[in-house]
């Protein structure tokens, strides 16, 4: 089908491996208007985010509601285009491409979304849905495309004879998500961007789909950008994990070392909040209080400081720059967890309790 094999190693002139996807200083903002079109504010959804995805690698992005993770995914896809920054994919900067050139560059980058029924045309047969990208990119003749669609359904574990003629409404959520995945890999992409792709599935079905992703990774040499709110889930599928808070990455590193030694206080809060089936480890009770502030008026300096138990005046005055504290493990924090807490933190934490919308007092025991 496609000329070069998928997951091809992109090697630069000096022999060093180059990233498959490289995002630099991505910024996405949306203007909020009041009645009458008066500008009310700017939502700073994604603020200067940079990361790389290496060939064959899975990078997980974890964040809560409003962290900007889905906006980030769409900015990579150029839908809508980011306000500034660059997205270099397989050597081409997508932000500078338009029209047919952008489409051609993007065929190697496919999406799987949370709601499979929302992304499948209800009037189409399953086989036509999977065949559609092949038609759009003029791949093969009709018979070859039919054959390929059936092979793809087979690949994702759906019997083409049984499911090919069905409509999406005749499928369960897990089956519909398999159809969406079959369509996504139809053009032999090198990168699959999954945005909460298993979040709406029951846990046993979720496990089936996760295993399918894992199998496609090894069989097709796929790379993934795996976006979800569930840190345990993200860690399980990812080589590296990036933690996003209020439009910025606060920590990026190998999943295992992030779990053993989180560097950012927010990462630790996320880890502590996950309900565990180990009753011994349950409820550290150190979960953070309050809720994320509005992205329209994000806090100065470090965006997590209004909820951070270690915040000082420095955190309000100066934005922490990403630092590499262990191999491949970066954190954007003035007082990472490997260091003792700053002496002035307690006083500042009390002072910031009056800041926008945090729950004022600790819940106690």
């Amino acid at each position, binding site marked *: 089908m496609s000329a070069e094999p998928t997951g091809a190693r992109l090697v630069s002139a000096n022999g060093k491996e180059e990233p498959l996807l490289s995002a630099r200083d991505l910024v996405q903002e949306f203007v909020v208007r009041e009645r009458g079109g008066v500008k009310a504010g700017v939502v700073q959804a994604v603020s200067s985010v940079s990361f790389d995805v290496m060939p064959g690698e*899975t990078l997980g992005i974890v964040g*809560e*509601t409003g962290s900007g993770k889905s906006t980030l995914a769409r900015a990579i896809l150029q839908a809508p285009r980011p306000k500034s920054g660059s997205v270099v994919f397989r050597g081409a900067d997508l932000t500078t491409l338009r029209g047919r050139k952008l489409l051609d560059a993007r065929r190697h980058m496919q999406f799987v979304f949370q709601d499979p029924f929302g992304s499948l045309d209800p009037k189409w047969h399953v086989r036509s849905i999977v065949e559609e990208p092949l038609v759009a990119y003029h791949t093969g003749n009709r018979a070859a495309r039919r054959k390929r669609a059936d092979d793809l359904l087979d690949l994702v574990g759906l019997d083409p004879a049984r499911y090919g003629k069905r409509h999406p409404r005749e499928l*369960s959520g*897990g089956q519909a998500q398999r159809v969406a995945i079959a369509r996504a890999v139809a053009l032999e992409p090198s990168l699959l961007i999954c945005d909460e792709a298993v979040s709406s599935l*029951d*846990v*046993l*079905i*979720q*496990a*089936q789909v*996760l*295993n399918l992703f*894992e199998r496609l*990774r090894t069989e097709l040499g796929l790379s993934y950008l795996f976006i979800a*709110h*569930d*840190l*345990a*889930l993200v*860690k*399980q*599928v*990812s*080589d590296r994990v990036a933690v996003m808070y209020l439009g910025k990455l606060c920590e990026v590193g190998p*999943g*295992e070392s992030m*779990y053993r030694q989180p560097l950012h206080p927010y990462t630790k*809060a*996320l*880890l*502590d*909040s*996950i*309900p*565990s*089936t*180990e*009753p*011994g480890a*349950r*409820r550290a*009770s150190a*979960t*953070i*209080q309050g*809720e994320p502030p509005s992205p329209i008026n994000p806090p100065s300096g470090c965006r997590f400081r209004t909820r951070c138990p270690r915040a000082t005046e420095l955190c309000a005055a100066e934005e922490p720059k990403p630092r590499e504290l262990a191999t491949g493990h970066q954190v954007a924090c003035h007082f990472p967890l490997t260091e003792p807490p700053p002496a002035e933190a307690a006083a500042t934490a009390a002072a910031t309790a009056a800041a926008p*919308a*945090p*729950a*004022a*007092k600790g*819940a*106690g025991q």
Partner: protein
Amino acid sequence: MTESLLEVEELRVSFAAGGREVRAVDGVSFSVNSGTTLAIIGESGSGKTVSCRAIMGLLPAGTAIRGSARLRGRELIGLSDSELRRHRGSEMAMVFQDPARSLNPTMRIGIQITEAITTHRKVSKGEAQAQAIELLRLVRIPAADRRFHEYPHQLSGGMRQRVMIAMALACRPKLLIADEATTALDVTTQAQIMELLLELQQELDMALILISHDLGLAASYADEVLVMYAGKIVEQAPAARLFGRGGTVRMRYTRALLDAIPHLERPAHALLPVVSGRPPDPTALPQGCSFAPRCASAADDCLAKAPTLTEHAPGHRWACWHPCENGSGMSEGGAS
């Protein structure tokens, strides 16, 4: 001798869909004591929500409900709407998954809570408002007297759920049912709401029923865990007995659920032990064990005859012909 607050016996719920009988709940028995937390765990369609709605009297007319549910010794099944309304709110209350849809978007939250109070109690308007502000404080909403005048859209999801809890607690119920109440919330907010529910439970000496799909939530916050599959209870035990090192999950469906949960301890790219297939069609349940068609250990007897839920060890009931060995399965560190 403490008598159970809620005593459910042989509860059966069925309704007609397209001329066929859907047996949503098929002979469920359990009890809950004051001050304790029971988690009812299951996938979509397992009957966990329908059971609780039957107890609350919240199922549509035409639903056939049989069996018994007694709250403080008083039978709830078969009560008229007006009789049930007296119990609902004042003795038992329910919080749902989607607070945005449970709240009236055109009314200030304070008015909605005040209404919940005056519906059940004869108090003056001023007094009810004072109590409503007190309730907002009880659920740790900061600046309660200011929030009182706000509309639901001005609050975050977590704050809205706190408002729903405040309304549910308006008449100090003895039983609170939380139906996937934290599922739509972020994990840090979920932890806050769960802490709040457990604190309130102690303060008000309530029984709490958590309905969830998440075994992790049950392990972290419940005293007793009950697992449902295709309308039946398949396993029930104290949380401490089921989970953790030396945990003894016996029913194979519970084991499968536990193994499928994303685990921080699991290495990256590890394949999950999976169960194929889907839950059975509720209009055509298999003759034998409902889980048998998906169970790797199913034998002829599983397909022929359904196992009954039996107390095999003190406090531990399960329904399985070929249960897991003690401590077997996928969980790491079985060296205890």
